[in-house]
């Protein structure tokens, strides 16, 4: 049994990733990521193409989109729709968690 110690990286708005890093982290190609940006499903934090950077928050959704692309043979257009819906689900789940917390115990 090997025991290893891991260094934690927060995937939040403070963690910005470059296009090259996002290619590595997501498993999508640079062309596919550019298409997602063209379709407006992925919005860079910095807009200049030579230095695109993205919020660390998007990494997990893009990984899920990549799994869907691979496992369902999605084309770039369908991938873009999937990513938008994943982001909406993430936002709704976060709102749902917030609302549940405000409800008195035992009512939900």
């Amino acid at each position, binding site marked *: *049994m*090997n*025991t*290893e*110690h*891991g*260094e*934690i*990286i*927060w*995937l*939040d708005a*403070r963690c910005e990733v470059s296009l090259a890093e996002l290619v*590595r*982290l997501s*498993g999508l190609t640079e062309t596919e990521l550019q298409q997602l940006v063209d379709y407006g499903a992925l919005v860079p934090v910095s807009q200049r193409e030579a230095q695109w950077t993205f919020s660390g928050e998007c*990494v*997990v959704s893009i*990984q*899920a989109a990549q*799994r*869907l692309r691979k*496992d*369902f043979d999605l084309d770039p257009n369908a991938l873009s729709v999937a990513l938008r819906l*994943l982001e909406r689900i993430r936002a709704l*789940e*976060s709102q749902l*968690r*917030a*609302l*549940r*917390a*405000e409800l*008195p*115990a035992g009512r939900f």
Partner: protein
Amino acid sequence: MKYKDYYAILGVERNADTDAIKKAYRKLAHKYHPDVSKDPQGEAKFKDVAEAYATLKDAEKRAAYDQLGRHSPGEDFRPPPDWGRQGGGQQSFDEADLADLFAHFGRGGGRRGAGHHGPIPIPGEDFEVRAEVSLENAYHGTVLELALSLPEMDAEGYMRHVPHTIKARIPKGATDGQRLRLRGKGGKGFNSGHDGDLYLNITLKPHALFRASGHDLYLDLPLAPWEALLGATVEVPTLGGTVQLKIPTGTQAGQKLRLAKRGLPKPHEGEGDLFAIVQIAVPAAANDKERALYQQLAEGSSFKPRGHFKGAVA
């Protein structure tokens, strides 16, 4: 090695053509894919389905799989001596996993690292695990021990799943839905391919008193009717210790009383707030003296709690 019946997993005949295999896979992917399905067992089921499809959709892998013969699922078996052109090393099959065997099949006959065709860098796989943390541990920070089974290549060049324990220090400030990345702690890369990452999906364990919303915490605060009416100072528990909270005169049920910076710490700076939500609690059983006092109050009060009902319905 344990046998898996890939045809049975996909629900197709052994002579099914590629289209039928693809169709069966897609149907099952819609049913069990963890990003789509609500089935709690979906992830495990989809893993089998994807493994079966990865082998059967590839003519070369499928032919090699068929050469293994027919066995019952879970049955221990050994591939024929000349199977997969690797030759020898039979004892190595005992602990091998069928998926590992086929995952990189075709690159040097299932055995890798020999460099017959020049080494192709293969990045390690990323893994995502759910990590449950108590609210107290999220508040103070904690170390999680994660037991994982990760694919690795052994000295003989065979893929194996090896148990690993990874100690991850969760800094204070993690909350529900937070994702953390452990760089290089996923599957090992080969031939200079980088190691995969491990992703932690943090969920907070339900707490007896507090509910988290981001970094804010919510607490139900029951007050006696007289405390709400007259005002009071009450003790309120927080994750950092008990504090005194002043209840203003005439506090209503449902009112949110904010205790600034008494929530969860935020990862980089600052803290969330703690909100105490007022509930008016009525004693379950009043004794004779209490009953008499309430009776006196009922007779002497001009309070009309439902005054706004009157005339409100046209």
